[in-house]
C-alpha cells in the first residue's frame, strides 16, 4: 500500500489530509501561500484552500506565531511555519511564554492545539546564522512537545498526529531531508507520536540519535557491521518526551551507549539523553556513555570546515569502534 514520496511531499500530503478533514486547520507563515513554501511543504494548498486558510504573512515571526497561539485559544488548529529555525529566537516569546504556559496558567481552561513547523539543521553553506539546530532551546520548556521525523513516513505520521493533538507541538524538519525519498503508507496506523523507532538491531552498542543523524547512524552501522560490530540504532523520533524505555532496554542488552547528534555538544539535546540514560542504566554500562555531537563553534561558511563541525558517517564509525574497545580495555585492566 505504500508509495515512494519525498519528505516534503509527505508533509504536504499530511497538511492536505488534515486541512480537508477539519476546517479548523489552517497554516500561516512567510511565503507559504502563493509562493508554495520555501521547501514546497505547502505547495498547492493556497489554490485549494484559499488565502484565509493558507496565509502569507509579513516578516513578523513573534507576532504571527502569537497569532497562532491566539487562534488556538479559540479552537483553531493552526500550523505555523517559521521559515527556518534560525528565526526561532525572534518567535520564542510566543512559544515559551505563550503556547507552553497558557493551558497551565489558566488552570486548565484552554487547550493549545498549535503546531509550529521549522526547517533547521546544518544544510549546505548557509553561514552561521542559517545553520542552527536549537533543539535544546525548546526541550527545557515544560508544556511543549517536540517531534523530529527522519523519514518521509514519520514526517507524514507525525505532522498528522501533531495537528490532531491538542498540545503545542514543535515539528523540527531537517533541511537536508526534504528531498530524501522513502516509502509512505498513507493508510497504516501510526505508532504513538513520541515512540522511538529501532532502526537497526545489534548487540554490541546502542546508538541513540534523531533526525538526519538517524540516517547517518544507520549508514555507520552498516560500515561497522563489516568489521563485525553490530550497532543497535534507535531513532528517537521525539525529543520531548523521550522514549526512555526503548533506549534503556537496548542498553541493558548492549551495555554501551553512543549518543549522536548534530547539535552543538555543550548543553545540546545529547546532554539530556546521555545523562538520563547514564543515570538509569548505570549498572548495565560497561563503558562511559559517549556523546558525538557538533563542535561548539558557529558554523563556518566554508564547505569543508562546515562539514568538519558536525559528525559525519566516518566519525560515527570511529566513535563506535572506540567505544566498543574502551569498554573492553577497562574490563581487562
Amino acid at each position, binding site marked *: 500500500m505504500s508509495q515512494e514520496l519525498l519528505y516534503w511531499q509527505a508533509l504536504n500530503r499530511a497538511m492536505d489530509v488534515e486541512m480537508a478533514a477539519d476546517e479548523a486547520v489552517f497554516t500561516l507563515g512567510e511565503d507559504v501561500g502563493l509562493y508554495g513554501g520555501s521547501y514546497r511543504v505547502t505547495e498547492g494548498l493556497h489554490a485549494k484552500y484559499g488565502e484565509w486558510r493558507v496565509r502569507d504573512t*509579513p516578516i513578523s515571526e513573534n507576532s504571527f506565531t502569537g497569532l497562532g497561539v491566539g487562534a488556538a485559544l*479559540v479552537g483553531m488548529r493552526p500550523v505555523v511555519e517559521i521559515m527556518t529555525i534560525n528565526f526561532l529566537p525572534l518567535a520564542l516569546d*510566543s512559544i515559551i511564554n505563550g503556547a507552553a504556559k497558557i493551558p*497551565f496558567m*489558566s488552570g486548565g481552561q484552554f487547550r493549545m492545539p498549535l503546531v509550529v513547523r521549522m526547517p533547521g539543521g546544518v544544510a549546505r553553506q548557509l553561514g552561521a546564522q542559517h545553520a542552527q539546530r536549537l533543539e535544546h532551546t525548546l526541550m527545557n520548556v515544560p508544556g511543549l512537545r517536540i517531534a523530529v521525523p527522519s523519514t518521509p513516513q514519520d514526517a507524514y505520521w507525525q505532522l498528522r498526529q501533531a495537528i490532531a493533538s491538542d498540545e503545542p507541538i514543535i515539528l523540527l524538519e531537517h533541511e537536508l531531508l526534504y528531498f530524501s525519498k522513502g516509502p509512505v503508507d498513507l493508510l497504516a496506523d501510526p505508532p504513538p*507520536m513520541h515512540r522511538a523507532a529501532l532502526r537497526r538491531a545489534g548487540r554490541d552498542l546502542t546508538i541513540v540519535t534523531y533526525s538526519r543523524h538517524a540516517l547517518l547512524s544507520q549508514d555507520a552501522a552498516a560500515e561497522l557491521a563489516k568489521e563485525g560490530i553490530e550497532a543497535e540504532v534507535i531513532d528517537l523520533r521525539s525529543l520531548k518526551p523521550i522514549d526512555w524505555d526503548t533506549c534503556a532496554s537496548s542498553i541493558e542488552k548492549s551495555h554501551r551507549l553512543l549518543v549522536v547528534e548534530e547539535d552543538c555538544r555543550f548543553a545540546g539535546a545529547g546532554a539530556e539523553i546521555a545523562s538520563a540514560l547514564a543515570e538509569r542504566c548505570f549498572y548495565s554500562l560497561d563503558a562511559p556513555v559517549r556523546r558525538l555531537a557538533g563542535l561548539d563553534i558557529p558554523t563556518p561558511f566554508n564547505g569543508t570546515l562546515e562539514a568538519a563541525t558536525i559528525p559525519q558517517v566516518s566519525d560515527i564509525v570511529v566513535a563506535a569502534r572506540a567505544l566498543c574497545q574502551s569498554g573492553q580495555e577497562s574490563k581487562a585492566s
Partner: protein
Amino acid sequence: MERDALHRLLRDMLLSRAFEERAAEEYAKGNIVGFLHLYPGEEAVGAGVINAAGPSDYIVSDYREHAHALIRGTPARNVMAELFGRADGMSGGMGGSMHMFDARRRFMGGYAIVGETCPIALGIAYTVAMRSLPEAVICFFGDGAVNQGTFHESLNMAALWRLPLLLVCENNHYAIGTEIHRHSAVVEVYKRAAAYNIPAERVDGMDVIKVYEAARRALERIRGGGGPQFIECETYRFRGHSMADPGTYRPAVEVKAHEAWDPISAAVREIEFRYPTPAELAAAGPDHIGQLAAHMVEAGHLAEIEIEALRKEVNAIVEDAVQFALQSPQPTMDAAWAHLNCNRRHEVLV
C-alpha cells in the same frame, strides 16, 4: 445615554476601586504575595470599553487586569481567590494576579510580558474574521507596550487583513518609572496607528462616558467591516506601578492634580448632573422624556444616598470575596499536573 448603562458603569468603577483598595490591604497583611498591579485611577477605561462590548466579544488584557475581569462579570470571589492563589481562583491558583482567565466570559487572559497581548488578540481576531462571525476582540495595553515590536507587527497584520480588533491603549503616561516623553518619540500614541492606516482616536480616559461612546463607535465600525480600530485613553494611575513601587519618581503635584480628576467622582458628578431632581421633573410636565427620567429617579438610582448604597453594595461584595478567598482550599500538586496536561486527549503518549 441610558440610565441602566450609566448605572452599570458607575457600579463597575466603584467595585473596581473597592476591590483594588482591598487587595492592597490584603497584600499588606500578607494574604497576597508577588507582583500586584492595581487599577485605581484607570477605572473609566475598563468600565467604558468593556461595557461597550457584547457578550460574545473577546477581551485580552495584561497584568493590570483584575478590574477588567470584574467588569466583564467574573465574580469578585474568584478574582480575589486567584489573588490569594487558591483553588477557587479564576485560574485555579496557578496564574495569580497577572494571569487571570475566564473562558466562559471570553476573558482570554492576563499576560505579564509587555506587548504579548497584541499577537494573541490578533489570532483571535483572525479566527473571527475567517469564520465571518459578528464578534470583535478587544486588546488592552499600556503606553509602554507600544514600543514593543509585537505592537507594530500585530497592527500591520490586523490592518492588512482588516481584522475585527479594537486596540485600547491605557495611556497612564508611565511605563513603571519612565515617563512617556522619555520612552516614546511621539507621545500622542494614537498617531502611531496612522502608520498602518488604522482609524484612531484619543479620548479623555478619566471620563467614562466618553470612553464608552468611543468604544461603541469603534465597535460599530468594526462590525460594519471597518477593520481594526484604535483608541487611546489618557488616564493616570493613582498608585505606584505595583505594590512594590512607591512611585516616588512622579512629582507629588502631578499625582495630586490627577487625583482631582478621579474618574469615579467625575462619573458621580455626571450622574448627579445629568438627571434632574424630582421637583424639576415635575415642573417639566409629563412628557415622554420627563417620564423616563422620572422613572429613573423613582427607581432610586440617582440620589446621592443611592451612590452611598452602591458603595456599600460593592464593599459587601468585596468583603464577601475576601472571606471566600480565605476559605478557599489551597490547590494541590495533582491539580497542577492536571492543568499542565489539560491538553491531553486520547493520545497514547510516552
